[in-house]
């Protein structure tokens, strides 16, 4: 199952790549069929923790990726638009077996849940008005909203704690302000997402670049 809690974890600042000696033996590499099977398994058994499951599978059990490669790829996926796991399937599949590998990983990740959710949709179309089902879904939506709020709190804590120490230095208060403006315009005022992001993303990246330049 997908859960908001595993969505956009703040990726750690990428450490400089350590100069490691090339491995003596060629690391194992999955076949196209294995890529499909592994992503189908991750997709279907990743109840609430797709990320943790993917790491265990790829780094610890099969050793297709080192821990560093996994972290680097996943940080990249968190910043790219679209589903984190979708992006991860594309990047991992490509590194292992090129474009065909990406397609196999995507098919494994999306195919089985698509079939499942379409069946769920068909059942809902018939029984969606049953009071018991309605109450169950309301309870689940409430819990999922709680998980999202926890994610927000986890991500926001370092941001707000660091910036508010010196709110006027380096435009420090601007970064939390960007989070608040995004929240209000999208979540409360219901402005169109592309409109808001086309303004706020360049602004936010500009501030980050400026702060980086100031620190040097």
């Amino acid at each position, binding site marked *: 199952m997908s859960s908001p809690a595993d969505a956009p974890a703040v990726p750690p600042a990428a450490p400089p790549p350590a100069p490691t000696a090339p491995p003596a033996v060629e690391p194992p590499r999955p076949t196209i069929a294995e890529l499909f099977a592994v992503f189908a398994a991750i997709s279907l058994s990743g109840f609430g923790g797709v990320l943790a499951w993917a790491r265990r599978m790829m780094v610890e059990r099969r050793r297709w990726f080192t821990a560093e490669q996994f972290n680097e790829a996943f940080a990249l996926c968190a910043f790219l638009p679209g589903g984190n796991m979708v992006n991860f399937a594309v990047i991992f599949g490509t590194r292992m077996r090129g474009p065909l590998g990406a397609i196999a990983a*995507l098919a494994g990740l*999306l195919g089985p849940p698509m079939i499942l959710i*379409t069946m769920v*949709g068909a059942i809902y*179309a018939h029984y969606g008005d049953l009071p018991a089902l309605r109450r169950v879904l309301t*309870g689940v939506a409430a819990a*999922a909203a709680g998980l*999202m709020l926890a994610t927000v709190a986890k991500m926001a804590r370092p941001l707000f704690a660091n910036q508010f120490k010196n709110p006027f230095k380096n435009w420090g208060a601007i970064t939390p302000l960007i989070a608040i403006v*995004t929240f209000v315009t999208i979540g409360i005022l219901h402005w169109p997402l*592309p409109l808001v992001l086309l303004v706020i993303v360049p602004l936010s990246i500009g501030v980050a670049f400026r702060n980086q330049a100031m620190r040097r």
Partner: protein
Amino acid sequence: MKSESGSLVTLAAFFAVTSLFAIGGGNAAIPEMHRYAVDIQHWLSDRQFADSFALAQLTPGPNLIIVTLIGYHVAGIPGAVVTTLAMCGPTSVLAFFVGRASQRFTGAAWHGALGRGLIPVMIGLTAASATVIVSVADYSWVAAAITLATAAIALFMRVHPLWAFAVAALLGLAGLV
């Protein structure tokens, strides 16, 4: 359910564009999907949107599988397929090229600033998504308590989120929500 090719094209265009603005995962697009599918196109009611979100949470698979459900609701199985491909196609192509380029660029100066610039936007979008989900559900005091309790548990205890869903579903089934 109307399965005209017109709504298929509308579905494809909307989700293809929206996916490119879903910074921080599939859930980042929840407010935009609600704005367009419920408020503008009237494809779903608030209740059906809230139900679709909950069903997607309960079904194994990535977060963005909710788009398949919306597509199915609007235009049947063709709608489900078109919507999913539109949501994943453009971003996959982007991930393909960025993934290849990033092997060359890792550690470059823009890499870090780009990421730090996106983090506050991702935080704002996640908060907005939670707000939209709360605002479309039929909220009772018990539902509000479930939201707060789940948030607290996720923040302060190491408990699998599946348990929160199971308890919330049972409370609902018992008629307490």
